[in-house]
């Protein structure tokens, strides 16, 4: 950013509450930091409602998206966010198959650093890859999804969407349904939701629930486990269905997709167990008719499209805060 004058009309200046040079996960975010993201997102939505949806807050900054996995909405929303803020955006795609050979991740990042990247938005099939990256570059690393581990910007846009509808999170019952083991979205949302004061219930077949949850442990927030979807949904304020990868059947984790639908699909009838004003979220892309019935995905309680819209504003907010916290 050039001057503070250009920033002021847009959003409050990142306060001293912000502690992150990188955004790797929300597990180390404080409630105040998440609230700062909310406030900044609100300002960005105002920008997006203008006829000319641009502010030059990131003029002169270079953002590179480095995706080792395919992505539609995440990558596009980052690129739009960067352009809306006047940053120069470029992208590098690397097929996942090339990860194991050829140029190492650290070398690739050194190249991006040499090319002048200020922010690198990174998606990678291996958990923890952004952490390795963060140790070896000065640029800010934004994790756009790493393996089964985390997807912090998705969690923040989910939180923002819930915040818009529900205001305070305290006492909210949030239910995450589906493949918890392989869902980086679920992992980041467990952190974010509990940090904000919601209570999290996980509902999944036991084979899609990762080890060690539900008991006494210190490394993840406390969660409730309920394998029966109707009991899980009872009294819920927020319901999030997770994408079921079809290969889970082939790898022996499920007897059949058919049985998964019978036991875990979010249907209108089941949603009736939740509170009448419960929100329905899905991180996308949706397998309609598998983890969620079409009628629910498109129903009155669904905020799935709002999630996508908010994705751009939240990412603008995050880039804005990150750039503001970088050395001038």
């Amino acid at each position, binding site marked *: 950013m050039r001057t503070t004058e250009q920033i002021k009309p847009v959003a409050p200046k990142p306060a001293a509450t912000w502690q992150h040079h990188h955004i790797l996960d929300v597990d180390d975010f404080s409630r105040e930091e998440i609230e700062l993201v909310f406030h900044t997102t609100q300002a960005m939505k105002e920008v997006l409602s203008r006829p000319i949806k641009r502010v030059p807050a990131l003029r002169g900054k270079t953002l590179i998206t480095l995706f080792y996995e395919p992505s539609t909405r995440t990558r596009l929303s980052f690129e739009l966010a960067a352009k809306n803020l006047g940053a120069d955006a470029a992208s590098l795609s690397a097929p996942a198959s090339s*990860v194991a050979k050829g140029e190492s991740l650290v070398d690739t990042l050194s190249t991006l650093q040499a090319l002048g990247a200020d922010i690198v938005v990174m998606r*990678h099939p291996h958990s*923890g890859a952004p952490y390795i990256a963060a140790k070896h570059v000065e640029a800010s690393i934004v994790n756009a999804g790493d393996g089964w581990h985390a997807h912090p910007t998705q969690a923040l846009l989910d939180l923002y969407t819930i915040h818009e509808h529900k205001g305070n999170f305290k006492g909210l019952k949030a239910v995450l349904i589906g493949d918890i083991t392989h869902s980086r979205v679920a992992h980041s949302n467990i952190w974010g939701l509990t940090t904000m004061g919601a209570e999290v219930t996980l509902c999944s077949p036991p084979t899609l629930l990762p*080890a*060690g949850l539900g008991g006494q442990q210190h*490394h*993840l927030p406390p969660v409730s486990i309920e394998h029966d979807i109707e009991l899980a949904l009872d009294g819920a304020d927020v319901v999030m269905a997770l994408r079921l990868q079809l290969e889970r059947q082939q790898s022996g984790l499920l007897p059949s997709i058919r049985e998964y639908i019978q036991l875990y699909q979010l249907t209108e009838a089941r949603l009736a167990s939740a509170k009448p004003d419960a929100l329905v979220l899905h991180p996308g892309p949706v397998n309609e008719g598998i983890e969620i019935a079409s009628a629910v995905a498109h129903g009155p309680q669904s905020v799935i499209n709002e999630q996508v819209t908010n994705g751009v504003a939240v990412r603008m907010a995050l880039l804005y805060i990150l750039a503001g916290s970088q050395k001038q």
Partner: protein
Amino acid sequence: MIKPLLIKGGRIIDPSQQKDEVGSLLVTEGKISWLGKGDAAPPHPDHNVLNAQGLVVCPGFIDLHCHLRQPGNEDKETIATGTRAAARGGFTTICCMPNTNPPLDNQTVVEFVKSKAASEGAVRVLPIGCISKGRKGKELAEMGDLAAAGVVAFSDDGEPALNSYIMRQALDYSRAFDLPITDHCEDTVLTEGGQMNEGIISTKLGLRGLPNAAEDIIVARDLALAQLTGGRLHIAHTTTEGAVDLIRRAKEKGIRVTAEVTPHHLTLTEERVIGYNTNAKVNPPLRTEQDIQALIQGLNDNTIDIIATDHAPHTEADKLCEFALAPFGISGFETALGSLMSLVHDKQLTLVNLIAKLTHEPAKILGNKHGGLGTLAIGTEADVTVFDPALEWVVDTRDFASKGKNTPLAGERLKGKVMATIYQGKLVYKDDSVKLKED
């Protein structure tokens, strides 16, 4: 002729002779020639003196499990660098695993390793031969030939567990040579793609886990096959509470089994992986405090016979990558004593027992074919380790003799340090602070 060396006034601990007393020890022409209690002076006064006051003097350590990488992966380690690292760690006898390239599945490669060790090695190298040809798990290697070439055990360490049929034949056939079958116990059907211990930390990090059950299952199977065949089974790097229980019960039943545990599995937990630390990536993985307590109990009641390092050096480039792409292994020789001494300082293991697990007990598994190892008995080859049990030092991998700097202990303070290592009467390592004096 080399002058005799007097190691003077140390606490001499030799479990092979139930000896634990302050005294001096004289090394003459490569042999232990005299032992004296208290201030006793040796009969012939002309010798160099290593002042061991305040230090422990014990038989040179024996490591039944390490990887020297030569032939095939000389960028990771060579026999020259690996044996120097061993000397720095107080080891005078090390048994190298056969997962080299080409592997030690025939006499020729065994002879190569032995001749390299003889010409370039700093300490004694006793090779372990393959169980199966090419480590492929299909046909037995020529165990008789390998035994004749001097291997001390058979192992396909580093490969998936053998199928039950081949394992049975290996345990049975090897009885003819009275050598143990050393197994890396892992049911790889359960651990495919696994990166670390399965549990809350693997969940937190989004990494695929290797559950304890994968180790327990193969330990149980191998014990049953050892019982069936009467073969000698040696369980490599035990890490789980369940495996300790199984081995304990098998020993009660008289099954011929011995077991080892590594310094890292005794002292570090899975939490070391947090932050995606590839230097804490090892197989079997670092487990939990509950497993550690079971392992220590196993050492104390002799369910676990010995401590072995599983020294597994890798290059920095090997480990500087995504966690899932990094190879398994910890460079262990040079931190072994310092980390193990934490168990002594915490009163979880006695000093005498620790030394037994590094000297007399592994010597018993090796048998008498290689001379009197793991002892300070008069007339045996002078393999002696001198260490300071209380000296604090910081692990600086730049000081390592090993090419493998891959340790999760880099930068950490350890209490207990090897000060001098004597192999066949020669001083093969001494700390910079140690000065020899002419008497």
